[in-house]
C-alpha cells in the first residue's frame, strides 16, 4: 500500500475499532431494534385499546329507528330510555353513562340530513363522534332500504370497489407497474430512506465533530499531526465513523425484521397489531383494502420487487456517502475551530443544520408530491439532495434528474471536503483564540 493510504488505513482502523468496541455502541445497536419492536407493538396495543375502549351511551330515540336496528354497534354500549330529555340530562351521569344522545323523530324518508344532539360532561373525541355517527347512520340506511322495499341483493350490488391502477408506460412500452400499492410502498420506503439520511447526517456528523473537539481538547492533535497530514487524520476519522454508521445500519437491517417477526410470536394478541401499525402509517383507505383482501402479503412483495432496485440501491449508497461526507466534513471543520466550549460550537452548527432541516421538510412534502417543482429542485440542489432524492427514488424520477443530481453532489462533496480540510488543518493547531466566521474564511487562504 502506498504510504499515505497506509496511514489513512491505520487511522481508519483505530477510529472504527474504538467505536465499535465501545459498550455504548453495542448496547445501542442491540437495544434499538428491541426499542423499535416495543414501539411498534406498544403503539399497536394502544391503538387497539383505544379502539376497544367501551363507552356507555344513553339514547333517547324519538325516531324509533335506532332502537330497533340490529346493525353492528361497533363495540359501543348503547342503552335506551323513553324518559323526557330534561330528566335524562339531569340523571345520565349519575347512572354511569358517558354520553347522552337524543335522536329526534324522523318522518321524511328522502331527508339526507338528520340532526342528532349529544350531551357529555367531557368533550368526546372526534373518532368517538365519527363512530357514533356511522353506527346511527347505518341504522338509518337499513331502515330506509327496508322502508323503500328495495331488494337487498340488488342494493348491495350497487357498491363497486374501485382500484386506481396506473397504466403508465415508459418509452419502450413497458409498464411502469405500480398502482396504489406501489404508491404506498414508495411512500413508506421514501420516508424511511429520507429519515434515515437525516438521522445519519445529524448523528454521525456530530459524532465526527465531538471526536475532533476531543482530539483538540486532549492535545493529541499536534502529536498526531507530526506523523500524519491533517487531511489524513480528518479523512480517517470521517471514514471510520462512517463505517461505524454503516455497520450499525447493516446490523439493524437484519435485526429489526427478525425482532419484528419473532417478538410478536411471544405476545399473544399482539400479532395483529403490526397490521394496525401499517394501517396507521398508510391512511384509512388501506384498512378497507385490508378488509377486502387487497392488502395481502403477495401484492406487497410483488410491488416491492417491481421497484427499480438496480437504480435505487446504488443511488441510495451514493447519496448516503455524498451527504455524509459533505456534512461530516463541515462538522469536522467546526470541531477543529472551536475550543472546549460547546456553546461556541453551536453557533457554527446552526448554519450547517439549517439546510439539513429545510431538506427534511422539503423531503416530507416531496413524498406527497414527488414531481412538484420544489421536490425536483430539492432533489438536485446538492445540500438538500442527499435527503430528498432518496425519498423520491421509489417514484421513478426521470433519469436525467438523478444523474445531474449525482454529478452535482460529487462536485459539491469534493468542494466541501476540500474547504473543510483547509479550515481543519489550521483550526486543529489553534488554541485559545476566539474564532469568528471571518477568521474561518481567512483560514481558507492560509498557505500550507
Amino acid at each position, binding site marked *: 500500500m502506498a*504510504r499515505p493510504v497506509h*496511514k489513512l488505513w*491505520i*487511522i481508519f482502523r*483505530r477510529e472504527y475499532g*474504538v467505536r465499535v468496541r465501545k459498550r455504548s455502541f453495542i448496547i445501542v445497536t442491540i437495544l434499538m431494534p428491541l426499542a423499535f419492536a416495543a414501539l411498534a407493538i406498544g403503539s399497536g396495543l394502544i391503538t387497539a385499546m383505544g379502539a376497544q375502549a367501551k363507552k356507555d351511551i344513553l339514547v333517547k330515540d324519538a325516531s324509533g329507528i335506532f332502537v330497533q336496528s340490529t346493525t353492528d354497534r361497533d363495540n359501543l354500549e348503547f342503552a335506551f330510555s323513553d324518559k323526557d330529555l330534561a330528566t335524562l340530562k339531569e340523571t345520565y351521569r349519575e347512572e354511569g353513562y358517558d354520553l347522552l344522545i337524543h335522536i329526534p323523530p324522523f318522518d321524511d324518508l328522502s331527508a339526507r340530513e338528520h340532526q342528532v344532539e349529544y350531551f357529555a360532561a367531557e368533550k368526546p373525541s372526534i373518532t368517538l363522534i365519527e363512530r357514533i355517527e356511522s353506527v346511527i347512520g347505518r341504522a338509518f340506511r337499513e331502515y330506509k332500504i327496508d322502508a323503500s322495499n328495495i331488494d337487498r341483493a340488488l342494493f348491495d350490488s350497487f357498491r363497486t370497489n374501485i382500484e386506481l391502477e396506473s397504466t403508465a408506460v415508459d418509452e419502450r412500452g413497458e409498464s411502469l407497474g405500480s398502482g396504489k400499492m406501489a404508491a404506498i410502498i414508495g411512500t413508506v420506503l421514501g420516508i424511511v430512506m429520507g429519515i434515515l439520511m437525516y438521522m445519519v447526517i445529524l448523528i454521525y456528523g456530530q459524532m465526527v465533530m465531538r471526536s475532533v473537539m476531543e*482530539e483538540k481538547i*486532549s*492535545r*493529541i*492533535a*499536534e*502529536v*498526531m*499531526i*507530526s*506523523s*500524519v*497530514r491533517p487531511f489524513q487524520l480528518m479523512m480517517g476519522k470521517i471514514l471510520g465513523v462512517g463505517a461505524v454508521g454503516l455497520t450499525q445500519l447493516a446490523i439493524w437491517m437484519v435485526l429489526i425484521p427478525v425482532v419484528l417477526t419473532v417478538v410478536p410470536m411471544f405476545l399473544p394478541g399482539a400479532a395483529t397489531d403490526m397490521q394496525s401499525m401499517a394501517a396507521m402509517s398508510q391512511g384509512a383507505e388501506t384498512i378497507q383494502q385490508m378488509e377486502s383482501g387487497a392488502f395481502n402479503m403477495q401484492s406487497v412483495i410483488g410491488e416491492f420487487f417491481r421497484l427499480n432496485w438496480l437504480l435505487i440501491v446504488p443511488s441510495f449508497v451514493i447519496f448516503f456517502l455524498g451527504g455524509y461526507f459533505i456534512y461530516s466534513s463541515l462538522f469536522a471543520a467546526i470541531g477543529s475551530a472551536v475550543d472546549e466550549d460547546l456553546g461556541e460550537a453551536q453557533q457554527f452548527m446552526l448554519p450547517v443544520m439549517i439546510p439539513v432541516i429545510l431538506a427534511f421538510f422539503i423531503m416530507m412534502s416531496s413524498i406527497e408530491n414527488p414531481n412538484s417543482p420544489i421536490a425536483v429542485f430539492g432533489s438536485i440542489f446538492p445540500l438538500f439532495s442527499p435527503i430528498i432524492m432518496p425519498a423520491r427514488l421509489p417514484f421513478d424520477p426521470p433519469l436525467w434528474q438523478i444523474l445531474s443530481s449525482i454529478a452535482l453532489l460529487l462536485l459539491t462533496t469534493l468542494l466541501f471536503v476540500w474547504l473543510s480540510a483547509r479550515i481543519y488543518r489550521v483550526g486543529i*493547531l489553534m*488554541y485559545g483564540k476566539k474564532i469568528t466566521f471571518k477568521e474561518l474564511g*481567512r483560514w481558507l487562504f*492560509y*498557505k*500550507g
Partner: protein
Amino acid sequence: MAILSLQGVTKRYRDLIAVNDVTFDVPQGTLFGLLGPNGAGKTSLIRIITTITGADAGQVFFNSAPLNSRHPEQIGYLPEERGLYRKMKVGEHLMYLAQLKGLSKTEARARITSMMQKFEITDWWGKKVEELSKGMQQKIQFIATIVHRPKLIILDEPFSGLDPINTNLIKDEIFALNREGTSIIFSTHRMEQVEEICEWIVLINKGQNVLHGRVADIKEQNKEGIYRIGFRGKLPDDLSGHFTVISDTDNELLVKADHGMSPNALLRELLDRQFIIEAFEEVKPSLNEIFIKTVNGQARA
C-alpha cells in the same frame, strides 16, 4: 555536518511575522537548545521543521536534502501541547503512534516492549491512559516520541510537569540517545536546563535569530572580564586603574578587568599585595544573563 539547516526561513501570518529570515544549522549529533521568550516564534519554527506547516520563504535541509514529507518519520517531536487519547489502552496507543511513524506491527511491539521494560512500566500495557497520572502520561508520550528511533528529536518543554525523579529519568535517556548519535533539539525558556544539557543554542526573539553558536563560544564572547578572587588577609585598596572592584565580602572579591587586560596581569598585580590568594577564577556569564541581556537589548533597540 548539519542534520538540519535553515536558510532564510520566514513565516508570516496575517498580522504578524512569526519567523523572520531565520538561518542556523543544527550540527549532527548535538544537544541543541532552541531558546526564546514566550511568543518568540519557537513553535512556529518547530512546526516548519516537522513539516506541519510550510515556510513562506527560505529553505530547510534535513541531512542536506530539502525537507520533504518523508522526513517526519526520521523526526520525533514532543510538542508542548501534548496529550493522548484518554480512553485508549497504553499498549494500543503506543502501537498506534508507532505504526503511524512507519513501523511494522512486529517491530513496533518489540520496541515498545523493550522500552517499557527500560522504564519499568510493563504492567501499564493494558491500563487506560486516563488511569495514569500526568507524569506517567508524559513517560508514555516520551516513548512515543522516540520509539521509531528518529535521527532528530525535538522536545518542546519536555520536563514541564515532571517531578525531579522522572525529570532525571528522561534526562538520562536524552543523554543516552545523544551518545548513540541522535541529534536533539531542546526547546525551552528554562535556562538552567539549557545550561546543563545543551552544547549549542540558537536564541530566537521576535521571530529573529539573535544569537547562535556553541554555548562555550557564546559565553566566551559575552564574558565581561570579571574575576572572582578568594583571599585571606587584608583587603588591598590600591589596585591600578585597569581593574575595578565590584564587590568585596569577608574573603571574596569580584574584580572587573578593563578590556584587553589578561587574567595574568591581574594576578601579577595581586601577588605583590599583603594577602594570600586562595582561589582565582574567571566569572563567565550564565546563559540566563546573556538571554536577558540580549532580549532586553533588542527591546530597547
